[in-house]
């Protein structure tokens, strides 16, 4: 009923924690068996270790939150050595998120990560500034996103999902561009760029000034973008953006997602992923649906 099959990912259910909200699984693994999850998307790996931004790194907003962690991670080699062994005894599929500040970084990181036996697929975070080109995000120019996708695809031993940035005027063009470049799937959406200003200091609250908006506040944007892109590409979409419960999961499927990722909701309720997985069959039963795959894109399919 909940099983889904995507490139590189045979999932017993379509629910996974989103990258960056689950670290490398150790903390949540203390709370419940990670094998209950459809998959785990681990925190972004970069070629070199990164400390990230100074604090404050998070700020709450109405029905959402801003974050500017700054991709803190111990670097791809250390992740492979210290974090991936955790998944050797777990059967849960692992999606490794890859980030970088120039194309070569992505390529080297993706090559190393894709060679790891516990990694089932890569997720390419293209919402990073390209330091060699004035800091313009890779994910805001279709040609650049496509070039990056092709380069990573050329070295990756595992399927590559490209995580689209919503901070673009034409999300469909972006989806098509990375599909043509060889992407095996899409993840969408990443966070929306936002800001909060502190009334007391009269300055932006986050040390990084801007941050990525996530949480229920962005769910309608995610639904709209998945609805549009899924009608124009033939690769599967992992949907994310403000999912809090089983009803939200179903809405994402109806929009065109084939699986979903849960991000910010893990902070509100650390048990939210297993709760949603438990609720889904009851919800589908009530809808008279015997297989969740039947729902994909039902909002626009004739």
């Amino acid at each position, binding site marked *: 009923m909940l099983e889904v099959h995507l490139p590189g990912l045979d999932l017993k259910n379509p629910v996974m924690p989103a990258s960056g909200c689950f670290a490398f699984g150790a903390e949540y693994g203390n709370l419940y068996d990670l094998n209950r999850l459809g998959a785990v998307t681990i925190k972004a790996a970069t070629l070199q270790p990164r400390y990230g931004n100074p604090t404050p790194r998070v700020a709450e907003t109405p029905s959402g939150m801003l974050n500017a962690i700054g991709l803190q991670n111990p670097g791809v080699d250390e992740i492979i050595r210290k974090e991936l062994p955790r998944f050797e005894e777990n059967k849960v599929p692992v999606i490794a998120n890859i980030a970088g500040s120039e194309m070569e970084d992505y390529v080297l990181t993706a090559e190393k990560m894709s060679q790891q036996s516990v990694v089932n697929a890569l997720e390419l975070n293209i919402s990073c500034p390209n330091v060699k080109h004035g800091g313009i995000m890779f994910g805001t120019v279709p040609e650049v996103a496509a070039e990056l996708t092709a380069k990573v695809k050329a070295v990756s031993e595992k399927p590559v999902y490209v995580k689209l940035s919503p901070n673009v005027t034409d999300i469909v063009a972006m989806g098509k561009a990375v599909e043509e470049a060889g992407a095996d799937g899409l993840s969408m959406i990443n966070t929306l760029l936002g800001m909060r200003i502190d009334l007391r200091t009269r300055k932006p609250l986050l040390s990084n000034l801007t941050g990525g908006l996530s949480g229920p506040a962005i769910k309608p944007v995610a639904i709209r973008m998945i609805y549009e892109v899924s009608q124009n590409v033939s690769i599967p979409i992992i949907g994310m953006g403000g999912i809090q419960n089983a009803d939200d999961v179903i809405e994402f499927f109806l929009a065109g997602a084939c699986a979903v990722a849960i991000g910010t909701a893990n902070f*509100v309720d650390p048990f939210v992923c297993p709760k949603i997985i438990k609720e889904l069959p009851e919800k589908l039963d009530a809808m008279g649906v015997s297989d969740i795959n039947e729902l994909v894109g039902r909002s626009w399919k004739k």
Partner: protein
Amino acid sequence: MMQENMRVLAHEEIADCIFELKLEGEMVWAITEPGQFVHIRVGGGSQSVAPLLRRPISISSADPSKKTMTLIYRSGGLGTGLLSETGIGEKVDVLGPLGHGFPVEATPLQGKALVIGGGVGIPPLYGLSQELNARGIQVTHVLGFRSAKDVFYQMAFEKAGRTIIMTEDGTDGRRGRVTDVLDSVDFDVAYACGPIPMLKALEHAITEKPLFVSLEQRMGCGIGACMACVTRATDANDAKGYRRVCCDGPVFKAGEVELC
């Protein structure tokens, strides 16, 4: 660590915008150290959208025999403002106990401890003081407040040991800051919780003896996964280079992390 809907047994304003909240539930049995905290989800009132994230609030004291814990918090923003409206008998969604608290065993039995607090950093020190007392340790408290209207728990602290109240404007106790009176106190180990400038001043003032400080930071998950509350390790050769306030702390040995 567990999630529990805990029952409100008592809830009252004990100083200006300072609330004492007594909760009942099984989580109390899981508390291991004074200085741990809980992460509270606050429901939305009729006038507002419910705050999304949980609010970290330190545990002031706990009584396992009665299954109760007492939290003291300042009502300021949206979340704590809504929390302050919670009535007796209502349930509160609590995640905890979280973090590592104060090491009471750092003070030798029959030794002397100095407990220093500033404002809304004072609550966890009450439970600490009780634990120290239970081990036969003599405790001196130096508690700093802005003004007389902000003072709370003075009698409770006095029962646990000598208590020096400091106010910035001199409306209660002595006028000045907590660092002004440290020379007059004999102690083996010091414990502190309060604003960063106070903790910095204490790190400068107390260099010969062990000092443990409890930090506050904006948090996301509260369990160490989201990396929102990190602070740099002071040692440039530290293997990780950082500590997470929520789960490596909130209590650190002075000098272990940068105070910022």
